[in-house]
């Protein structure tokens, strides 16, 4: 005969079982979101090593020479502007200006981009007109509005500076001072310019306290509702691609001027977002002054035209969400070691 107490005793563990099951399910769900988290974090792992091209491998001698050339104003026609005048380490390798001023005090048409983390790049300049850093380096030297140095005379000029011959010979045994080697040395130095670990990287590596809750929410928005990841992907936050993000500038056709494919009208290269706080003002024309304004541009400030990317649409972000995204962008700034001015050969 089944007595009530039996029934009760039979089921007396039920609550325990139920609570246990619920806990397990909770853990299970937690584990799943942990997995999702880990998968997302894996996409933002920093690379272990800098890639150097086979035809211009790294050497200390080349990187050293490249740094001297990068900081040497004698690479310019009037001996007054170096690469670092515009790509200034104090502004995370930009110049803090809307657009910079070249040799004959002419304003340039586009804002100075950073040279940070370009070792991983594909095409260079806002419009992708250079295929490599080697090729890129000679562009600004010769450009009549930048350093305005007659390239035919550059080799002679460098030969006349005691010390460069030795340095070139060490870096490029047998070929010495040539234009090609100037490009190769500068490119090698540029590839060593890599942003150091930021709070964001420490968080990716597992330190939960490295960034604020607002920044964590911002990161989730970045990869979700705000869709930034459609273009700013990976540890350097760029797809190295070309997009029209709907800036009002309608004079500069960007990538289309180099490659006449209709979808490239008004398309510019996606900049990486490392040290972005230090790199204001923003965009190819330096037209946006703050990160809040950048996020509001994506939220609802873009112009409508045929070529605007499919990945740009009204986001409907609240003010709090905008603030979270900005908080996240702040975690990408690293405490990079100070860059020392090199002693130049004389």
């Amino acid at each position, binding site marked *: 005969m089944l007595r009530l107490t039996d029934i009760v005793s039979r089921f007396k563990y039920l609550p325990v079982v139920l609570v246990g099951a619920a806990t397990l399910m909770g853990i299970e769900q937690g584990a799943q979101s942990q997995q999702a988290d880990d998968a997302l974090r894996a996409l933002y792992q920093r690379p272990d090593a800098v890639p150097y091209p086979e035809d211009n491998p790294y050497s200390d001698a080349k990187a050293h020479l490249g740094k001297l050339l990068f900081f040497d104003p004698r690479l310019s026609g009037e001996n007054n502007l170096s690469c670092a005048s515009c790509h200034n380490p104090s502004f995370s390798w930009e110049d803090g200006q809307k657009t910079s001023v070249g040799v004959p005090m002419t304003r340039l048409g586009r804002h100075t981009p950073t040279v940070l983390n370009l070792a991983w790049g594909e095409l260079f300049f806002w419009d992708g007109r250079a295929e490599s850093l080697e090729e890129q380096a000679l562009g600004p030297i010769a450009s009549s509005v930048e350093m305005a140095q007659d390239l035919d005379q550059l080799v002679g000029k460098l030969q006349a500076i005691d010390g460069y011959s030795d340095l070139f010979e060490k870096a490029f045994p047998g070929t010495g001072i040539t234009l090609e080697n100037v490009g190769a040395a500068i490119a090698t130095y540029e590839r060593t310019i890599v942003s150091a670990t930021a709070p964001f990287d420490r968080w990716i590596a597992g330190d939960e306290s490295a960034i604020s809750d607002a920044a964590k929410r911002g990161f989730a928005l970045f990869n979700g509702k705000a869709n930034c990841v*459609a273009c700013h992907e990976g540890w350097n936050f760029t797809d190295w691609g070309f*997009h029209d993000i709907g800036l009002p500038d309608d004079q500069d056709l960007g990538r289309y001027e180099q490659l006449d494919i*209709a979808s490239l009208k008004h398309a510019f290269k996606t900049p990486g977002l490392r040290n972005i706080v230090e790199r204001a003002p923003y965009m190819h024309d330096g037209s946006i002054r703050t990160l809040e304004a950048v996020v509001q541009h994506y939220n609802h400030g873009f112009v409508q035209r045929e070529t605007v990317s499919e990945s740009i649409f009204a986001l409907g972000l609240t003010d709090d969400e905008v603030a979270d995204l900005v908080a996240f962008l702040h975690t990408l700034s690293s405490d990079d070691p100070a860059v020392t001015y090199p002693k130049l050969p004389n």
Partner: protein
Amino acid sequence: MRSYRQIFFSLVFVCAAAITPLKAQDTVTISQKGKAFSESSVTIKSGAKVRFVNDDTVAHNVYARIGSDKEDLGLQKPGEQGEISFDKPGKYRVRCAIHPKMKLTVVVE
């Protein structure tokens, strides 16, 4: 009457069967996913086509340089596809105009 019909349909069937495998061989399909082409290089016979399918979450724009011409498939939204035929033997570079890291070599024999 009926037999004519049967003959006609069997002829259609035989023809279709004969053509289908040829067609399949003549067109190689390349998928675009995760901002990458599914292959880095393909080898095809001259006159064959390469079909580009956008299996991605973002738009792409495949183009190829063929001699002095440019074959431009235009903007492809997710789910869309397009084809390029390669008529002359040689080595061609296909690239996405939006994402220049997406590169494919087509070898035409």
